[in-house]
């Protein structure tokens, strides 16, 4: 059997909190983070609700002591990655450490500003606003902040990105190439993505209602989520009590349509099934499923059908946390990995806010309220994206 890869640290920032403890409080009090746009100018400002992190760039850069001209994607990533490393209590310098991040927008928030002047005249626009445009630049900035040299990489498979970065981290540690990997993802809200999703007419003008019969689209969110993944050797040498371990994962492609999911959810079904197989678990062993559940007509129907194919009518507790946070694209898998680990660590499940009626085709009723005192040993988290990218990951409770 292959070595177990442990989750030694967790860090998250989103619309419902700037840290793991704040996030936990919002879940427990069932407080959604969806609200009007306040942090950037847009014609959609009072029309489209979003899940903003409740800190300006200035506040973030000041509290982190990071240069203020850094992109928001990097700032959010630095915040969550630092928390993940801090909760692990490990001195990264002691180990062969890598960073694997995920992002879809990279430095787009600054590129948007650059482009306004650049379009008028290609010799205009401040270069400092475009120097961090590339996705990989946000990862460099996080690596530099954590003092990681050597192995870094970034994944962009749209909304499934960060699950893939965690999976790649596990594989590199198993291979013996690295001892420790900080893995996850980060994405900031940007006018680019807001207008992109709006042009596709899949943004709800009200707070989103994942898995509801009357759902009407998604709300965009932002944030970052990172895990510190370690080998058995790091665990025993550092005398760690891990939050849990990564049990299995899978990455498939729907190969059906550039943006729409297949009607039978073949990609998502395949991802869940393969992740279970790698874990050596039966579908019934899963105690909680953190759904992708964006709130769009297409995703929730397709994912719901895949769940039904896997479980029939006896499905475990499940919910989409995107009614709390909005859909944070490339970061969502990292954030929801932290939520999944929290469910195991705190033996709880999170509610699917604003749910009223089941989707007729599936009849699935998600978890309605926050519930503690449960036995949560295995959690599956789904992340699906444009381009047919489907990923699922299973986290399990560490045995004492």
């Amino acid at each position, binding site marked *: 059997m292959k070595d177990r890869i442990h989750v030694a640290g967790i860090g998250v920032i989103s619309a419902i909190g700037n840290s793991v403890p704040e996030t936990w409080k919002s879940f427990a009090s069932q407080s959604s983070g969806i609200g009007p746009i306040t942090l950037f100018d*847009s*014609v*959609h400002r009072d029309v489209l609700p979003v899940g903003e992190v409740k800190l300006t760039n200035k506040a973030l850069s000041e509290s982190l002591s990071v240069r203020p001209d850094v992109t928001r994607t990097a700032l959010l990533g630095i915040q969550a990655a630092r928390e993940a490393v801090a909760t692990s209590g490990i001195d990264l310098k002691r180990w062969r450490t890598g960073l694997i991040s995920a992002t*879809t927008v990279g430095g787009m928030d600054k*590129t*948007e500003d650059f*482009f*306004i002047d*650049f*379009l008028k005249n*290609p*010799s205009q*626009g401040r*270069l400092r606003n*475009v*120097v961090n445009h*590339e*996705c*990989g*630049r946000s*990862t*460099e900035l996080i690596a530099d902040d954590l003092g990681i*040299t*050597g*192995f*870094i*990489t*970034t*994944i*962009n*498979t*749209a909304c499934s990105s960060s699950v*893939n970065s965690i999976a790649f981290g596990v*594989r*590199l540690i198993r*291979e013996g190439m690295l001892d420790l990997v900080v893995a996850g993802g980060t994405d900031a809200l940007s*006018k*680019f993505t807001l*207008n*992109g999703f*709006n*042009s*596709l007419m899949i943004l709800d003008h009200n707070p989103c209602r994942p898995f509801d019969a009357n759902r009407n689209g998604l709300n965009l969110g932002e944030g970052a989520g990172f895990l510190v993944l370690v080998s058995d050797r790091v665990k025993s040498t550092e005398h760690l009590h891990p939050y849990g371990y990564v049990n299995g994962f899978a*990455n*498939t*492609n*729907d*190969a*059906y*349509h*550039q*943006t729409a999911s297949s009607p039978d959810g*073949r*990609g998502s079904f*395949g991802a869940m099934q393969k992740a279970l197989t790698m874990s050596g678990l039966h579908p019934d062993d899963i105690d909680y499923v953190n759904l992708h559940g964006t709130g769009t007509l297409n995703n929730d129907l397709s994912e719901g059908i895949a769940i039904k194919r896997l479980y029939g009518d006896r499905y475990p507790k499940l919910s989409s946390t995107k009614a709390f946070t909005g859909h944070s694209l490339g970061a969502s898998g990292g954030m929801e990995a932290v939520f999944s680990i929290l469910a195991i660590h705190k033996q709880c499940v999170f509610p699917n806010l604003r749910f009223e009626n089941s989707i007729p085709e599936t009849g699935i009723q998600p978890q309605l309220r926050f519930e503690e005192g449960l036995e949560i040993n295995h959690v599956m988290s789904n992340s699906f*994206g*444009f*381009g*047919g*990218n489907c990923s699922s990951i299973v986290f399990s409770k560490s045995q004492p």
Partner: protein
Amino acid sequence: MPIYIKGMGTISPQQSWGDGGLLSELRDHKGNRLSCLEPDYTQYISAPSLRRMSRIIKMGVTASAIALREAGMEAPDGIITGTSYGCLDDTGIFLGKMVENKEHALNPTPFIHSTHNTIGSQIALLINCQGYNQTYTQGAFSFESALLDALLELKDNPNQSILAGGVDEITANSHAIQKRFGIFRNAPASSLDLFNVPAAGTINGEGAAYFVLSGKKGSQDKVAVDSVATFYKPGHQALLNGISQFVQAAALLPGDIDLVLLGKCGDTRLDQATEAISTTLFSSNVIGSFKHLCGEYPTASAFALWLGARMIQARQIPEVVATGNVHRPLRTILIYNPYFGNYHSLILLRAC
């Protein structure tokens, strides 16, 4: 564990597709922007699909089709793409319209095609590949990450076939912006003279290269990728140690390497550092270069892998790559590719 190259498809500023001999007709480019020699895409992609594709997607999809054709395969088990800039053209179009139209009445198509994974997912869609699909976007580690992923995947499942590639394009916008950072030479007369005319700055390049890889050796296979490594901001000594360990881990002595393919970029200052590494570690080896052929860009190492593999297949080193021919069979090539100081990567190729 080595992985075997079953097929290659490369679109580059050189004639790298079709039936001609390896670099038999060299293309010399004027100016600091090298453009790819593009094939007739209708030979590879249906007209309705073509209409919706931007240039980088056409190049990526076609390079993958050429690679699959050479491998005699319809669809691989997985697709792994490395692209630093992703789909810049569609990103620029959507951004431009958003600014011009003040966020009103936007066509979603360029947005849909703007994400980095569009290349890999369009390939999957066209050949109905529902397997593993991954896209890396880490500057000059994008292709190396894809290759490393393929190595790990095939180690676990050697019988599978993985399509792995590196794709980056130059657009009018990206070139205009990059020029302003002062990284390119001013109106150079000849790309092939990049290393003969010392100057500050490099030349901008682009390309698409896909490889069909498998852990199972076939009787036709001539080249294997042995290993790959990346070093981010390593510092001089750590880099020297890293390269030495990489060579050692492959059970080689520096002298066993028949050709070191060096990613010099033509910028005198940057190349001094690159040559310092090569003279320290590979003083008695034959040294070749390739960026005067393809230009400097984040996934130029994919072009280097194509070039290295073709050289091993052809058992010869074209004079434009290295002067002072190897007087022994060409069996082992080490690609060392630095990129603007912070990125350093290694790919080891062997005849098999």
